């Protein structure tokens, strides 16, 4: 038996996501799926002058996958791709159960998903947005923007 991890932060981001919409100004997009459970999202980013100016996602899936993507966008919008990369690493560390208290604080609301690390079957739901982000951060456009900024 696991604790109930559906706290207010999670249910709120699931039912009232701020970033779940199309993004016409996106400079890059990436599809991410968890085939076994049917979580399915498209992550869109607008990266200009080395800054993630805007971001959104669309799709469907369980509350954990949807809320986690929304929380992730809260964290990374307005940041550089390097900063986003850093958050991604912290998040992955958290859901594999090896994060320090200070690091956890950096993750702000995303830390609400910490107890997922005890539910191996759901880790991939929480990680879907972040794994999709990882792919995007390796895109030429994102990296190029990065070079242009100097």
């Amino acid at each position: 038996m696991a604790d109930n991890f559906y706290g207010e932060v999670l249910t709120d981001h699931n039912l009232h996501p701020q970033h779940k919409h199309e993004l016409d100004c996106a400079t890059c997009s990436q599809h991410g799926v968890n085939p076994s459970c049917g979580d399915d999202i498209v992550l869109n980013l607008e990266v200009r002058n080395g800054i993630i100016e805007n971001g959104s996602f669309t799709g469907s899936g369980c509350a954990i996958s949807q809320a986690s993507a929304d929380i992730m966008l809260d964290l990374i919008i307005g940041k550089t791709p390097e900063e986003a990369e850093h958050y991604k690493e912290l998040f992955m560390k958290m859901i594999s159960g090896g994060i320090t208290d200070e690091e956890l604080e950096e993750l702000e609301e995303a830390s609400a998903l910490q107890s997922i690390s005890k539910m191996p079957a759901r880790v991939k739901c929480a990680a879907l947005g972040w794994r999709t982000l990882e792919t995007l951060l390796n895109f030429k456009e994102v990296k190029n923007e990065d070079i242009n900024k100097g």
Partner: protein
Amino acid sequence: MMNKELLSKQNFPVFDAYPGLAYLDNSATQQKPRQVIEAVNRYYCEENANPLRGLYELSVKATDAYEGARTAVKGFIGAKSEKEIIFTRNASESLNLIAYSWGRENIKADDEILVAVSEHHSDLLPWQILAKQKGAVIRYLECSQSGEYTAQALRKALTPKTKLFAVAQISNVFGRLNPIKEFTDICHENKTVIVCDGAQSVPHIPVDVQELGVDFLAFSAHKMLGPMGMGVLYGKEELLEKMPPFLSGGEMIEYVTREGATYAELPHKFEAGTVNAGGAVGLKAAIDYINELGFEAIERREDELTKLAFEGMKKIPYVNIIGADDPHDHHGILTFTIEGVHPHDIAAVFDSENIAIRAGHHCAQPLHQFLGVQSTARMSLAFYNDEKDIERFVSVLGSVRRKMGYGG
């Protein structure tokens, strides 16, 4: 032991370790009564040797234990002879055995294999692979949205090219009992072999292979109180006799030379290598338990609990039950969705209340595509569940949307 005692959770040691657990995932696997666990233990403590091999007393004992289990299975499903009972690892292996052995010999290019659309992947993938290898065609028999298959639809789907029809007696999603005897008669008129997946029926209703007339029946011990790693394939003797071996190795031969071998008689032709004697003994103990309790008592109890759950679920407006509108047609399997909540989240909420249910596609993805849903949640009960389990299930079900942040 009295029926009442046999029906009780008290015989199931897992509930000593997890006293508060409401275990409602019985279609996935059932818990094991003490009698089964002790029988397996006793075999390894008192009778273990390599069966069918040794020329000494202990090995004779082991052989008797193993073959005694075969006789028990024969009686349990009404087969004509022990030669028709092949021991495997599980229902999946039994179905694969048919596809590889019977299929390799009997399916040719352009032949058709008809599969019920609600089949478990274990009764679908072996046929898909066989069809691909042979250039044969897979066709699907469709059911109504509530899971009903009709004789009329089957008649229409069969063609002179249909060599095999694969269907579960009870689907692991709908829980509905299919009219297998009628299907068998229709198939046989068309010279089509019928494979019946009994994984969800054999544990819950009396199954008699001669009465049903099916050519093959597959089931797993672990879904009927028995140990994991033990399964059964029933096949008609005249079919099994003509089939080539599935796996090869020790124990399945009569005579081996440098050039080749002649194979052992049925059923050992299909049981290569050292067998799962402990598993067979456990299966026999499970059959003894079921026989002592009797299917009448099992069915009455499971029907009662299904009705209680069904009626409780019906009262909750946002719960949608997949399948028949009569609880009697569910055989302890209640698959459902909750408006606005993903099934994995439903299962997690139940887990936080110490109630085990299943969520996902239940190894029946084509069926979920057919129903137009990604995934579902499923509660499945057994006779050893009680009213309290069901009441807790219904009460948590009523709280799921609130727990997921919906108002009211």
